[in-house]
């Protein structure tokens, strides 16, 4: 009997017992549906978590000036002033392979005044790259560029907290003049709210100004030293590459030998990265085990129904054998029935899973991600479950003695 004929025979047999076939399929339908839906939700969540992690800075490197030790007394890190704007420019220009952006940052505290309101906050001087590196979008207005930095323009970008402290709600903010220390600055943009950092610090309590505005006008120095460099690697996985490249370049620029201790420190958020990797793996393992368990349960359902079916159709098997059906033909027939059950169940489950995932995406506003490999893989697994579940019942059918089978009542 060829494959096409056995397929037709199987379909015919399954149609004759619609309710039973449906019940047999149900397990696989639910299994595949649940797997597709949960995996799509899981992957959606994973993608969102990854995105959030990135905004927290899993791809970030921080370069701080190192410590120096004079006559055996070591200072803490950051005590020297050996990181410069030129270092930042060099990294940006030469390490395009692993580094996406470099933001030189210097800080000072300052009293800010607008009208009859005043507030003490931290002023950070940097370049426009700061917003890219920290993945910090603007809520209103436009950022300053190279020109403002070069000319030490009197412009500033306000953090959300500073806006709340200085301005009446609803009052226009962009274009207003505020005084930072004694320097009048024009507000050109507002940062979007970031909330607290993981250490409970209010991240929105700051003012951002061009780096030269901070150093030349607010601090009043001609030094090129920067407080730190914040570097964004091209991706979280390239952080290690970026760290290696930056170390090599800075050592070279600072005339240090390969073996010498660096006069700067590089820190990254490796812990956070590890946590992210681990959580991703946990989710993947969890989903895989759920998928496996439900497919096993679905397979057991099919095996159960097929066993009953073989017993009930013993006489049919006897007839088929009497008119020339070989053991192999009987085996193939029942195996085909099981695989058809599993595949049709899998297909229905797939449709239900996709619909459920889309419905949850719109109804609960959950991010879902339907990936083709998962869907194809689940279908293949369902088919495999059919083969495994159908094999024993089919083998039993094929080993029946034709005389006994014909006599079976």
């Amino acid at each position, binding site marked *: 009997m060829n494959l096409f004929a056995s397929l037709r025979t199987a379909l*015919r047999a399954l149609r004759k017992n619609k309710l039973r076939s449906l019940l047999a399929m149900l397990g696989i339908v639910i299994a595949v549906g649940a797997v597709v839906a949960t995996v799509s939700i899981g992957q959606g969540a994973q993608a969102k978590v990854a995105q959030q992690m990135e905004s927290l800075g899993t791809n970030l490197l921080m370069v701080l000036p190192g410590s120096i030790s004079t006559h055996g007394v070591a200072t803490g890190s950051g005590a020297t002033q050996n990181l410069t704007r030129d270092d930042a420019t060099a990294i940006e220009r030469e390490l395009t392979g692993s580094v996406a952006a470099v933001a030189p940052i210097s800080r000072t505290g300052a009293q800010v005044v607008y009208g009859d309101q005043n507030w003490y906050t931290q002023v950070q001087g940097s370049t426009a790259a700061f917003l890219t590196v920290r993945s910090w979008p603007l809520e209103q207005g436009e950022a300053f560029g190279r020109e403002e930095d070069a000319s030490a323009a009197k412009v500033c970008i306000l953090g959300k907290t500073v806006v709340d402290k200085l301005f009446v709600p609803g009052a226009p903010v962009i274009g207003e003049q505020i005084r930072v220390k004694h320097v009048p600055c024009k507000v050109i943009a507002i940062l979007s709210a970031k909330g607290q950092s993981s250490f409970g610090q209010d991240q929105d309590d700051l003012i951002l100004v061009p780096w030269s505005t901070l150093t030349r006008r607010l601090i009043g120095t001609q030094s090129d030293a920067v407080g730190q460099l914040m570097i964004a690697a091209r991706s979280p996985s390239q952080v290690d590459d970026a760290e290696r490249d930056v170390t090599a370049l800075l050592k070279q620029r600072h005339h240090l030998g390969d073996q010498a201790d660096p006069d700067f420190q590089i820190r990254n958020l490796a812990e956070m990265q590890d946590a992210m990797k681990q959580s991703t793996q946990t989710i993947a393992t969890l989903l895989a085990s759920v998928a496996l368990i439900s497919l096993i349960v679905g397979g057991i359902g099919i095996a159960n129904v097929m066993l009953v079916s073989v017993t009930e159709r013993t006489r049919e098997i006897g007839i088929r*054998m009497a*008119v*020339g059906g070989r053991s192999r033909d009987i085996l193939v027939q029942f195996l085909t029935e099981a695989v058809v059950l599993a595949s049709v169940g899998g297909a229905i489950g797939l449709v239900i899973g996709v619909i459920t995932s889309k419905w949850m995406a719109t109804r609960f506003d959950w991010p879902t991600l339907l990936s083709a490999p998962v869907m194809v893989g689940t279908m293949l697994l369902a088919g495999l479950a059919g083969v495994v579940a159908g094999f024993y019942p089919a083998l039993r059918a094929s080993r029946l003695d034709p005389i006994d089978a014909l006599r079976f009542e």
Partner: protein
Amino acid sequence: MEVKTIEKTYTMGDVEVRALRGVSLAIHKGDFVAVMGASGSGKSTFMNLVGCLDKPTKGNYFLGGTDVGRLSRDQLARVRGQQIGFVFQGFNLLPRTSAVENVELPMLYQGVGGKERQQRAAEALARVGLGDRLDHTPAQLSGGQQQRVAIARALVNRPTLLLADEPTGNLDSRTSVEVMAIFQELNDQGLTVLLVTHEPDIAEHARRIVNFKDGVVLTDVQVSPRKVALDELKKLDEEEADAARKAAV
């Protein structure tokens, strides 16, 4: 076909049952043999062996020159499919399956293509007078019609040997005679028929009657005078007509 001193022994628990104790029989092409005997005489066991559903414990069974006793399970299935047609007492049709699909079944296992299958099945059904009932399921057919579907199924692969195991056991006397008419017609066309029955009336339609008792052949005689089913049918028709006339008067 020829069987030579075949024996068949079953083990049921601790008891050995010697169902056949050395049976030798030759049936030539075109013969029509009725096998008779009480239950337990070994006639069913003999039938299963001849039908290649079982293998003898001892002895040889030659079917058209091949020693069937030496064949594997799958080879036996092949012989059944190509050379033997079965007709059973309980019809043994697939339930909820149309007549034409039932008749197609043996061809399915011989790799006959779909179109040819349908055509040959329809032809076989027409030959047994069911050309207008192709799509009826067994439940929609009378006992006689079901048995005729079974005969069509037995014939569709053009076997050399037709085995009928109590084919009239579940049928009334008129339908039984109709079925025997079909067998006689097929036999006249050259088909070898082996019929198992315990009704002497039915056995007398054969050319030869073999009696089994306790696993051996008791008698083996030619039938004369032989019953002709078509004549009996005519007689039955006349009787019915008479009865109808009397009732009318």
